[in-house]
């Protein structure tokens, strides 16, 4: 366990794990939880839960419209969370941060409001999560625009060979994933953005899987809009984020209409509030934003670099151990180069459902299925995969439990 020992110097994993009450859970009496389903959602530290509870027990009120003490406190907490997000992703302006209910809503907001017309083209990739594919399918169908996509190489990378033929002067939007939830691949944002810029297309980055594990700098990435989601970054469910350049967001029509997003309303017509409120109709996810702010504090205190290093070592360890399991094939990059800690694999002759079921019996929680990335599954000729994914609290011991579990699965099905 030398890797573990080395990691411990920089990163006190046992202290970290104490912050997450659920990690002490036994799935069944005597069977401790080994949670390796982090790409689906992360667990929450005590600090986030305490902050949300404190919000509800001490400050809860509706925001923006009130002048009483609780309303002012709630507003300060809610808007304070926006400041935290803005600085976490290095937004130039806090007004560029819009709270949504999840990544999916953020991506739909863009797909519904970016103007498209017949003849226009939208480019996605074959490794998109359904949440960054279906909204663009709907948008192009609705407007008569055309959907195109960048294909994949056999080793789980974007096939950039014919980028020039895919992204053309007709391209209005290039929407792509930063880190694939199925393959673990981290895409070369700079290459895609450079090409998109050349043709004047708007770039949309689905950073749902990258923000929680490596942080991002939206200005350095050079994209026009980014979507990510609270529940994968140790924050609560029910909150997502859209960051967009002010010029872009200012130019878009409103998405949802209602309270808060208006300037002046008469029966005959209305005008819109300035950013960010223009895109935040109705009572927002107040406690969730506050909880997300606490999650960002938590991540920042640990340090995104330390988290990335920790997960990088775990991923290296897992890739190495998994590849020694007989009959196991990694779907996606097999090395740690430009890849994160979501590892999909196929186990010869045993369906992922059966793998997942037997692992669960041992307390090992992995995800099985198409992981909302069915086109990429089709591309690699698998109806489904088993996916193990790490987070900041994962240990090499948990990887060992997975590998031992897979040996058990193989024995079970060859009896």
């Amino acid at each position, binding site marked *: 366990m030398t890797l573990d020992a080395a990691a411990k110097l920089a990163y006190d994993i046992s202290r970290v794990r104490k912050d997450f009450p659920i990690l002490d859970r036994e799935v*069944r009496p005597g069977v401790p939880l080994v949670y390796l389903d982090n790409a689906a959602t992360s667990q929450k530290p005590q600090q986030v839960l305490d902050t949300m509870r404190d919000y509800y027990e001490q400050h809860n009120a509706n925001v923006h419209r009130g002048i009483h003490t609780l309303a002012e406190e709630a507003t300060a907490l809610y808007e304070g969370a926006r400041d935290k997000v803005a600085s976490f992703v290095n937004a130039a302006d806090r007004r560029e941060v819009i709270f949504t209910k999840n990544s999916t809503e953020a991506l739909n907001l863009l797909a519904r409001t970016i103007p498209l017309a017949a003849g226009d083209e939208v480019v996605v990739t074959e490794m998109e999560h359904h949440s960054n594919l279906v909204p663009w399918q709907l948008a192009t169908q609705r407007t008569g625009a055309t959907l195109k996509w960048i294909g994949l190489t056999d080793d789980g990378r974007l096939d950039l060979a014919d980028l020039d033929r895919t992204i053309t002067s007709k391209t209005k939007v290039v929407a792509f994933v930063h880190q694939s939830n199925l393959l673990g691949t981290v895409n070369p944002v700079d290459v895609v953005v450079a090409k998109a810029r050349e043709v004047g297309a708007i770039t949309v980055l689905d950073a749902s899987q990258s923000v929680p594990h490596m942080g991002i700098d939206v200005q350095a990435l050079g994209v026009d809009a980014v979507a990510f989601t609270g529940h994968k970054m140790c924050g609560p469910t029910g909150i997502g984020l859209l960051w967009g350049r002010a010029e872009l967001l200012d130019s878009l029509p409103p998405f949802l209409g209602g309270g808060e997003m208006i300037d002046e309303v008469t029966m005959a017509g209305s005008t819109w509030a300035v950013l960010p409120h223009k895109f935040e109709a109705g009572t927002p996810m107040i406690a969730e934003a506050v909880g997300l702010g606490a999650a960002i504090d938590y991540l920042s205190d640990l340090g995104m670099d330390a988290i990335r290093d920790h997960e990088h070592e775990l991923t290296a360890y897992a890739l190495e151990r998994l590849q020694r399991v007989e009959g196991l094939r990694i779907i996606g990059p097999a090395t740690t180069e430009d890849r994160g800690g979501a590892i999909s694999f196929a186990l010869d002759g045993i*369906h*992922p*459902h*059966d793998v997942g*079921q*037997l692992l*669960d*019996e041992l307390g090992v929680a992995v995800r*099985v*299925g*198409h992981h909302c990335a*069915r086109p990429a*599954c089709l591309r690699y000729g*698998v*109806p*489904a995969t088993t996916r193990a994914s790490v987070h900041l609290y994962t240990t090499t011991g948990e990887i060992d439990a997975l590998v031992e579990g897979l040996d058990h699965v193989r024995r*079970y*099905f060859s*009896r």
Partner: protein
Amino acid sequence: MTVDSMYQEIILDHYKNPHHRGLREPFDAEVRHLNPTCGDEITLRVQLDGDTVKDVSYDSEGCSISQASASVMADLVIGKDLASATSTYDEFLELMQSKGQLEPDEDVLEDAIAFAGVSKYPARVKCALLAWMAWRDAVGQARGEVGESTT
């Protein structure tokens, strides 16, 4: 391990040696069903002869439960008259929705009693039902009822 109540010997046998697998001619209706959350899928053909289920054949991909279930289902319905095949379907459906509370009737369900343990696992019930749902749909189409090709 409690999971052994799901992975019965009978199920693993059918999984390893499925019966009636491979699409056959002739057929009156063909349907394709899939389980969107896990990627299990089945293409299934039914041939009726009056009120008799003359043949059922299928091609499928999926976990042991869905594969075994297709095999057991084909065994159970081929050659039966429609009314009794349908009542077997009803009984199997009831068993799968019982959350482990029902004692299956071996005279009716034969090998399908092995799925009693699956009914305790809500996420897997869909797997066990996939082939049956496809069969039910295909029969409906073969008899000219309005059907849907996927559910």
